[in-house]
């Protein structure tokens, strides 16, 4: 859907990164109300997967959804305005950070509950022969919810065009995988007859290539498929609530997707993408702040 050149992918990731950084900044200044969950460090997932979807495909996202929203073409100003509770927000200020909608994009903040909704959407698209697929985003923590497994079973049983994307950022809020996860990620999907690609990378180009294959498999076979993206959240769960070992966070900074891709761009390409993203973020928040 988007610009799939390295510079284009960088621009998309920077839009998300700078938006999230600005959101946290606005929070610390008391200009945002409520809560927000940023996806700093996970931008390659949103850009890599959603970037290869068609505009007519549907994305169902979760509490950490700003990146998914922006990658699927959502208005940045309308998102900033939503976070600020403005009537010009994408959900009129009624939804807030976790409850976003524009045609083809939906999000909700309750863990796991969106998965059957996404499966139902896939059933609707299949019956209409629209050719659209549904991509639904889950986290590692979400795999604790029983309704996810009910949904995997039915999606496979009825052969529905849905792509399950698990972003394993190794933490369910503050609880590490070791304290809430038994067994195996991939086997959970394979047990229901759903093929899964496991990627241990934050390289957006690698993710994008894998997503291209996964998406065309879902579209052509009309059957579900899954992607497990092992990643890391460099930002706190929501705002200041970070109890992780700073050394661990530092370790994962070497896998920051922006730096990984940045090393392959010229300074000029990077600066160009950075300036464009910065201008857009600045304008989005500035306009939102003026809105009613």
């Amino acid at each position: 859907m988007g610009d799939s050149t390295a510079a284009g992918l960088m621009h998309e990731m920077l839009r998300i990164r700078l938006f999230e950084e600005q959101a946290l900044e606005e929070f610390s200044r008391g200009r945002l109300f409520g809560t927000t969950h940023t996806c700093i460090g996970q931008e390659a997932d949103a850009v890599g997967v959603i970037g290869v979807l068609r505009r007519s495909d549907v994305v169902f996202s979760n509490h950490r959804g700003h990146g998914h929203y922006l990658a699927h073409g959502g208005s940045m100003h309308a998102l900033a305005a939503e976070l600020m509770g403005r009537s010009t927000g994408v959900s009129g200020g009624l939804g807030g950070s976790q409850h976003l909608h524009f045609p083809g994009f939906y999000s909700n903040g309750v863990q796991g509950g969106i998965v059957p909704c996404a499966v139902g959407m896939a059933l609707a698209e299949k019956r209409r022969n629209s050719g659209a697929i549904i991509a639904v985003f889950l986290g590692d923590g979400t795999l604790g919810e029983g309704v996810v497994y009910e949904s995997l079973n039915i999606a496979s049983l009825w052969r529905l065009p849905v792509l399950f994307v698990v972003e394993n950022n190794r933490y369910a809020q503050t609880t590490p995988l070791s304290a809430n996860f038994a067994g195996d990620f991939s086997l959970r999907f394979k047990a229901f007859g759903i093929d899964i690609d496991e990627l241990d990378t934050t390289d957006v180009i690698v993710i994008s290539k894998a997503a291209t294959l996964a998406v065309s498999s879902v579209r052509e076979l009309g059957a579900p498929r899954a992607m497990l993206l092992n990643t890391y959240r460099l930002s706190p769960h929501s705002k200041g609530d970070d109890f992780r070992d700073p050394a661990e966070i530092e370790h994962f900074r070497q896998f920051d997707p922006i730096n990984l891709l940045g090393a392959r761009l010229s300074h000029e390409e990077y600066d160009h993408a950075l300036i464009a993203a910065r201008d857009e973020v600045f304008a989005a928040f500035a306009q939102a702040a003026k809105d009613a």
Partner: protein
Amino acid sequence: MITVLQALNEAMREAMATDERVLFLGEDVLDPYGGAFKVAKGLSTQFPDRVLTTPISEAAITGIATGLALRGMRPVVEIMFGDFLSLAFDQLLNHACKFRWMYNDQVRVPMVVRTPMGGRRGYGPTHSQCTEKHLLGIPGLRVVAVNSLCDPKQLLLNAILCDDEPTLFVEHKLLYLSRLGQSSNPPHFEIIRSNSLFLYPAVSVRIAGAPRAEVTIATYGYMADLVLDAVWRLAMEQEIFVEVIVPTCLSPLDIAPILGSFERTGSLLTVEEGVVSLGWGSEVLSLVAEGTPKGGRFVARRLGARDLPIPSSRPLESAVLPSVQDIFDAAMELVNRQEKNAV
């Protein structure tokens, strides 16, 4: 003379024949079984690709219906027993009923969750409850209860084809075999539909030609049948006359027909089969109290199941659920209280 069950089955057939967007999902709904209570009988034969039998996954199928509705379909879900709605509660509360509002009116979720409810069949604590009380008062959720005095077919057709809100459609198990227009109640009742412009009308019932009513009884669903039995006995044995108001839409509740009757009688009894504490009747009494002017008479009480799980044994179940005698006694108590007040 058709039964409520046949009327509901006809409504399902007609809805599916009328609108291709109607899909039907539920557990064990395929022919020849046709669903635990047979509302689905024949549907999968007539519409083989639009009737989907599902795994035992109430949460998922309610969520799937929500997803279908968000993408332009008009799904109907059957939950085999109303008791199992607890498994679908998150899907109703946090998904189906939230999307329209929290997406700023940009979407609609036209879906119906049909379910058999209630006791008196000896099914015990987890297959006999009236769990609708737990789903009343949820913004964005319509709760509709069928009865034998309304037209069940039209009611269900309206829910499936005309209503764009998520709707819980409650079918008491004992109603299925009630014959329409000739319930187990004695004849000679005059039935008046009020607010008939709405999708879900209320009816008001009294004995034809009876003198002025002294008591208003508000009730819904199968309890209306028992109330009419009690009303007939009150008239014949005590010459006490009652006006009965039976809404079909429990939530959000239009109090006007009940309030209108209460203004004539000054005395209100609510009757429901669910446990009485913090139930539907409590809300009815509150709304009527709020509508009563200063110095106005307010004689009222609620009748429902005792605040206990429902036992399996027949005599014990009967002791927990409200009976015709209980309704009779409660109405007598109200009348006696009125007379004491008058003295």
